[in-house]
Structure formats: C-alpha cells, structure tokens
C-alpha cells in the first residue's frame, strides 16, 4: 500500500452513469477511500451499508467517504439504490482496476480490488492506510481513530 505521507494519486471515475468524480474536487475535506471487492455482499455485514449509517459521524469530522470497486456504474447504481446508500461508489471499470493499481490495492488473480482503506487529509496527502484480511469487513474503528489523530495535529 502507499505509505502515509504520500500524495494520493489523482483519479477521475464515474460516480453515476453521467457524472465523474475527481479526487481534487474534494480538496479541503478529509477523504476516506474504501476499496472493496464487489457490490452485493450480504446486507447485515456489508461494509458499505455500515459506512452509510455513519455518514453523520464522518461529516462531523469534515470527512467524505467514497467506495471504489471494479463493478460498472450501472451495477453501482442498482446496488446503491437497493441499499439506499448516500455516498458515491466509483467504478474502477475501464481500464479495469487502474486506480486500485495506482493505490497498490489490486488483486490481479481475482480481478478485484482488495479490501483496503485510505484516509486522505485536506491537502490530498495520505495519512492512514489499512489492508483488511480477505472476507473480513474492517468496520470503522480504525478510520475513526485516524480522523481523531489527524484532528490533534
């Protein structure tokens, strides 16, 4: 993974069928990048569903959460509507996994993003990273600790 202190690589990915999101648009905010293998994991243990419930807490910290997987924008749209997600899911679809590769969290054997988290500061610098064991939803305690530590500086 990219080490804390590294400048977060810029990207521009589809957030909806007709919109793109660039990392630089979020300058001035903390950004939580959540790379995950695939849409449609079981509901009650789904990482994105969990972060969806936490938006209030993240916003209090001036942080935005963004999910990234190799699923297409149409798949993300259906998943997002089904789970009533209120934050963007980006499609790292073409060229497949290019952003995940830039962040060193692509699993070339499975052809999916690894389950990995980055917290980026207001200036676009990576401040925290975490690679989760396969099949394990990492929860949010690590993110919250990282956001708190950043506030102390």
């Amino acid at each position, binding site marked *: 993974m990219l080490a804390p202190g590294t400048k977060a690589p810029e990207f521009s990915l589809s957030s909806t069928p007709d919109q793109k999101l660039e990392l630089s648009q979020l300058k001035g905010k903390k950004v939580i990048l959540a790379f995950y293998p695939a849409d449609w994991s079981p509901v*009650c243990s789904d990482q994105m569903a969990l972060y969806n419930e936490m938006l209030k807490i993240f916003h209090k910290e001036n942080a935005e959460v963004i999910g990234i997987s190799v699923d297409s924008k149409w798949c993300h749209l259906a998943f997002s509507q089904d789970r009533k997600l209120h934050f963007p899911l980006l499609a790292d679809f073409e060229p497949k996994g290019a952003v995940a590769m830039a962040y060193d969290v692509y699993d070339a054997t499975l052809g999916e993003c690894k389950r990995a988290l980055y917290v980026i500061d207001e200036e676009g610098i990576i401040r925290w990273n975490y690679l989760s064991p396969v099949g394990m*939803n990492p929860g949010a305690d690590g993110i919250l600790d990282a956001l708190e530590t950043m506030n102390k500086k």
Partner: protein
Amino acid sequence: MAKLKPAVSDKDNIQGNTSAPVELVEYGDYECPHCGRAYPIVKAIQEKMGDKLKFVFRNFPLAEIHPHAVNAAIATEAAALQNKFWEMHDYIFEHQRRLDDASLIAYATHLQLDVQQFENDFSKTELAQKVDDDFESGMRSGVNGTPSFFINGEKYNGNWEGEEFLDYLQSLAK
C-alpha cells in the same frame, strides 16, 4: 484486536450475574435476521452457563436497510424505564417480522406496561440519544455487522452458530 469502548457500566442493560467471570456483549439490530437467529443461541448459552455469565445487549440498528430497527430499539429502552427491558427485547425478537409502531405498542400492552407512559417515553429524545450512543460506541469498538459479540471486552470473530462459541465462553469460566 478491537476492544469494547466504553466498557460495560450501569447505563447498560445487563442480564445475569453482574460479577460473573464471563461478560458477553452483543451489538444487535432487532430487524436483522441474523440477530434473530442469534437470539435463541444466546438464550441457550445463558441457560447452560448460569451465574458464570453476564449478558449485555447494545443497540446497533442499521436504519437505512431496516426501517423499523431504530423504533424497536427505542421501544426496548422505553420498556427499560418500566423495568421490562428484557421482556421487550425477547418479545421483539420472537416477533421480528412485525415491528411497525402499532405492533410495538401492542407488545407493550401484551407485556402489561403502562402504555400511556410507554408512549410518552417513546418520544423522549434521551431514549433516541441512548440508541445513537450505543451505535456510536459500536462503531468505535469495531462492530462490522450484526450481530457482533464482545467477550470480556474483546471482539469475538469466531463462529457464533456452532459449538465453538459455547466452548470458548465456557473455557473462560474456569
């Protein structure tokens, strides 16, 4: 390893021997089918372990996917004000498919709560706040889905549906 934050206190709903050697904390959602499956499992464990086990339930409603989960949680806290938290907790898990407000009030009636008082308490912001606080404590403790269990303050990542759950708990009671 994820640790329970904050530790269990008298603000929690506690069942069993408060000075038991084993403390089991569940973060659960009343509308979650997995929590519904965990309910009889925990009951059986409580029966087997008797006064060796203290059980605590904290609320972790996933409101966006379970539209009744928050109100069901508030209903248990309102019942707690009439010392019937566990009665309501059990009754709700036994009737998980019907958790609309009218049903929750019917359950309060069935449990012989003072229904007028129950309805008044139901809309108190303190109770909604208690549920929110439970949720935030779960987030800070590393809850990653429901149900999540903490045993003596440490997150339990093993299987809770097999024998190993009881075996592990019993190994700590010795």
